[in-house]
């Protein structure tokens, strides 16, 4: 039976394991737990990525304010890199804005898949402010952790997680800017590499087969569409791969018993 046939269930009524129920005492506990979860590998990775980005700003002759502003107001590393690459090669203002926006279209579906998991009470206009903290790191961790967190504490957890990730990116950028040229190229290489590596590793923790198939197809279609058209490639690769995965799941996987998801 597909889930569309079922009546709407309030997420807060879904029974959780005992461990999940007892995980947080109150929102403040959840918030600080989010901060603690971010403070390990995720913050380290994001910090390293932003250090690499700051170094990129310095070596390409941007000023420190401009470089830091992108981290503060955009907080989307791939978009920031696209902005710099296009500014260096002298693209027009309109082309830059459009290309960066297209790179950021992933935020639409990231938000749409994460925010409905919050408690109904939390789904109000304040989310328009909270959403700025959403980036790939916080999204990947939240998607992994939310099913073990009580619905009413999810927003507080996400805010703790996202806030630390956002705040750590500012000193990371500034540090990278001033360190550029002082550290050997091999270290910069490691800093630049740590970000994609982290995402790659978190993908191994994704459980539902529909999403695993989607990611596998995304790995194949991503480069193909990139060759066809660089700016729209993420969007097209995502739509094509995701749709194929969805239909594979719908036609074949759901009929089998014992599939994960």
């Amino acid at each position: 039976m597909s889930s569309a046939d079922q009546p709407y269930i309030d997420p807060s009524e879904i029974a959780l394991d005992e461990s999940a129920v007892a995980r947080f005492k109150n929102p403040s506990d959840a918030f600080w737990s989010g901060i603690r979860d971010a403070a390990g590998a995720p913050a380290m990775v994001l910090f390293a990525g932003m250090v690499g980005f700051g170094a990129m700003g310095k070596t390409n002759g941007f000023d420190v304010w401009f470089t830091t502003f992108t981290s503060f107001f955009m907080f989307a590393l791939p978009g920031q890199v696209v902005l710099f690459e296009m500014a260096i090669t002298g693209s027009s203002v309109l082309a830059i804005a459009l290309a960066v926006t297209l790179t950021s279209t992933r935020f639409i579906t990231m938000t749409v898949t994460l925010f409905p998991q919050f408690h109904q009470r939390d789904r109000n206009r304040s989310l328009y402010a909270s959403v700025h903290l959403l980036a790939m790191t916080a999204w990947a961790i939240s998607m992994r952790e939310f099913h073990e967190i009580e619905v009413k504490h999810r927003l507080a957890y996400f805010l703790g997680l996202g806030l630390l990730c956002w705040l750590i990116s500012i000193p990371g950028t500034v540090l990278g800017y001033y360190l550029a040229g002082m550290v050997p190229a091999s270290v910069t290489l490691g800093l630049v590499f740590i970000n994609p590596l982290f995402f790659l590793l978190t993908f191994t923790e994704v459980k539902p087969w529909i999403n695993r198939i989607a990611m596998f197809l995304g790995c194949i279609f991503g480069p193909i569409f990139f060759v066809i058209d660089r700016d729209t490639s993420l969007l097209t690769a995502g739509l094509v791969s995701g749709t194929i995965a969805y239909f594979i799941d719908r036609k074949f996987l759901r009929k089998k018993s014992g599939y994960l998801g």
Partner: protein
Amino acid sequence: MSTVDTLTNALSGWGLWIALVGACLGTYLCRAIGVFLSQSINQDSEIFRWLAAVTYAMVAALTVRLIVMPLGLMATVPLWIRILICALSIGVMVSRPTKRLVPALLIGTLLMVGYGIIR
């Protein structure tokens, strides 16, 4: 637009800051559209399943792009070295997924730094 282009090859001065404002607005617009659409979607619906698959595909495509088709410094590392290091890190990771994220990250990063030193 063309006046900005002809001033200098690289975008500079006010044009640069206007591009930044445009990029910030565009990025936030995507986040805001997401919030707006998320109000009317519930997590048990078919569209939610489809969008989740699309999102995972997008972030996978983005990650592969950063590894296989990087810009700048990372492009100077041969593709097979990048893929080999990724494969080794994933190997460490899947050997015990709940415990090995940090070791896998460290090994991958140190291997890349090591390559940078010996090349």
